[in-house]
């Protein structure tokens, strides 16, 4: 039975939670592999006697029930397919569950295998039910049948999910306005309370959760103790707890161990392609992009090599991701045979990476990253960068930073003192110079680069610094000189002697 969506009111976020409950999760994780149209039972044969853990509806129709010996189950249902729990299938199913839920909200707790609790505080209240249906449909298409419960607290959302399972509906909302009325329809079994407590309720004539929630707390505490109070608090929405949010770091991860020794990179690239396609699709389903790629290659001698490759801009372009990762993998040092590959995607934070609509910046950050890599191979990594002044008076002191991806507005003149005069162009190596001095002023300059008569000189400009760092202190006297038929130059006098630093142009 599909519950009609509520009429939309003002789009405001409310405090609330959703519980996604995948009944018989271990069995459903196996069913995803195609076992849907015949009776199937999951058995535990680690004990002396093999017993049925759970069974699907077709098997149940033949009388197969949990806890039953497997032999008996097979006798009741001759066509029963017996399966053992598969950790790999369960892991894949739980990841699918988490990834799909991540497309709705970011705050998710993995409460138990097959059970997620979602914090809906970031979602508009009037979209909860619609989003719940959407999520349920997506999971159903992926092969997981779930029930979604919505409530003010994690406990109420869990009760709502149990109610949905109990009544055979997909979405159940315990809204604050009609909570008691809805609880009046639910038996105590839904609240997962103990058998003894349920027996007491039966003896007292209490049949529904609603009738219990209407009791006064003091009366419940006097007659039922802590267990009763805890249930009462849950039903009245007074029991709140913080969610232990799931770690998403290892969510988008694939790994493969080779059955044979691999000595070439070709199989690695083949595997990489496969992983990229699968992981990119999974990240895309959450409405995010890939911010970084982690790869880890394990070798037969027990060693590992790995790297984290940050993307210039989050992307889902498989070609970009492949180029980035394959270029990095090409530099792999294969001292031993490859044993396995592990690939992980770091999803982006969609809000943090939102770019201004009319901002000026790099048009294609991926291309820029690739261009830089190629240029570095030609000139060297230390000879590329956006120059920035550093906090020092040492002439020419600067650092080279990555180019700013966004450029701000440039209204008015540049901040700081006005820049006057021509620019200085430094010689690559300071040119040792012999200087003839008269009355403290340079008169003639002789060096391997040029020789000339000084027709005018301004200076000296004294500077020094870093004397507080052992062995790094510097001291100099600068002269700006005009040399006949040559131009304007900067002449520097240091304790080591005179040198021609460069020319003004």
């Amino acid at each position, binding site marked *: 039975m599909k519950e009609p969506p509520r009429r939309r009111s003002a789009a405001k976020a409310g405090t609330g939670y959703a519980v996604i409950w995948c009944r018989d999760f271990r069995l459903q994780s196996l069913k995803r592999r195609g076992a849907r149209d015949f009776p199937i039972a999951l058995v535990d044969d680690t004990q002396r006697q093999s017993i049925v853990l759970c069974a699907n509806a077709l098997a149940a129709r033949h009388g197969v029930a949990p806890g039953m010996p497997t032999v008996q189950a097979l006798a009741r249902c001759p066509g029963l397919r017996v399966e053992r729990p598969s950790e790999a299938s369960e892991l894949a199913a739980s990841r699918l569950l988490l990834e799909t839920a991540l497309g709705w909200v970011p705050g998710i707790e993995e409460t138990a295998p097959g059970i997620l609790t979602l914090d809906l505080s970031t979602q508009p209240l009037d979209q909860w039910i619609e989003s719940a249906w959407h999520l349920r449909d997506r999971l159903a298409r992926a092969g997981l049948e779930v029930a979604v419960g919505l409530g003010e607290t994690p406990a109420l959302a869990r009760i709502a999910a149990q109610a949905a399972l109990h009544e055979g509906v997909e979405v159940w909302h315990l809204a604050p306005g009609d909570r008691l009325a809805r609880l009046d329809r639910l038996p105590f079994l839904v609240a997962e309370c103990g058998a003894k407590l349920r027996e007491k309720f039966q003896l007292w004539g209490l049949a529904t959760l609603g009738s219990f929630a209407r009791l006064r707390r003091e009366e419940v505490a006097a007659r039922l103790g802590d267990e009763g109070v805890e249930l009462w608090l849950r039903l009245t929405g007074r029991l709140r707890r913080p969610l232990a949010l799931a770690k998403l770091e290892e969510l988008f991860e694939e790994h493969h161990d080779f059955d044979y020794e691999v000595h070439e990179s070709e199989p690695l690239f083949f595997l990489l392609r496969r992983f990229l396609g699968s992981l990119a699709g999974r990240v895309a389903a959450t409405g995010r992009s890939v911010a970084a790629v982690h790869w880890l290659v394990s070798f037969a001698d027990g060693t590992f090599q790995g790297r984290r490759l940050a993307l210039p801009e989050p992307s889902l372009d498989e070609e970009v991701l492949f180029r980035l990762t394959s270029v990095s993998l090409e530099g792999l040092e294969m001292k031993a045979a490859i044993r396995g590959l592990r690939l992980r995607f770091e999803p982006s934070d969609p809000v943090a990476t939102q770019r201004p609509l009319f901002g000026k910046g790099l048009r294609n950050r991926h291309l820029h990253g690739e261009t830089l890599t190629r240029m570095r191979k030609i000139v060297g990594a230390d000879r590329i960068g956006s120059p920035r002044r550093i906090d020092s008076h040492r002439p020419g002191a600067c650092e080279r930073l990555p180019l700013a991806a966004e450029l701000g507005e440039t209204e008015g003149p540049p901040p700081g003192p006005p820049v006057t005069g021509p620019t200085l162009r430094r010689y690559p190596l300071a040119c040792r110079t012999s200087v003839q001095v008269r009355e403290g002023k340079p008169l003639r300059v002789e060096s391997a680069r040029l020789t000339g008569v000084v027709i005018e000189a301004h200076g000296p400009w004294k500077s020094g610094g870093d004397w507080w760092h052992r062995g790094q202190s510097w001291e100099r006297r600068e002269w700006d000189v005009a040399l006949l038929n040559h131009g304007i130059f900067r002449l520097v006098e240091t304790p080591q002697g005179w040198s021609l630093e460069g020319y*003004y142009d």
Partner: protein
Amino acid sequence: MPDPSDKLAALAALRRELGGKVRSGTEFLEECTRRDPGEATTLAGLDALLGGGFKRGRLTEIHVPGPSRGGGLILASLLARARQAGQYAILFDVGSGFSIESFPDRDLESLLWVGCDSAAQAVAVWDVAARDENYRWFFLDGRDCTPEDWRAVRPAQWQRLVGQMREREAVGVIFARGPVTAVAKDRLELVSTLGLDSLHQDRETIVASLAFRRVEGGGREKAGRREGGERRMAG
């Protein structure tokens, strides 16, 4: 067998008939360039000589015959213009003579500096960068390069570079002592000389006083001959 002169006459008649309807690729490119107003600078004299500003998709040479002619000031003006327009620029600095204290911090925000050992290396790395759509301005500072340094660059590299620049509609400016390559269609020479007093003058005032001269013929023919000779050898 038909007379070849008849064929030529027929071809000429056809051309007359078609008139301006059909143009060669070269004519088309030249017309596109003529129509392009170019990237105007704040330097009135320079813009006038270039017909409105630096043409997109072309290389322009600025010849700085010696120190203290104002080559660095032109570079500083162009960097400021690029930053003001929110466009990124790359400077290929042969000899790494770039001096950070000569430029305002803000103008450096959109600049990527690339230190190069030689002219050949600068052109090689420019060839890589020219394929990147993020950059609008490319500057090659080869003021300290000798003619021998420029000769080490293969003509095919320049041709490829111009092709990339045309595709991206980027502006390329080469600062050099003299002629560099035949593919540069615009060449200007700085003819003014700066005095020591200019060190304390407002930069805008100095830039406004700079004088240029358009270089025609000689340098280009020389470069053309050299490259033509290399092409023949390669053939």
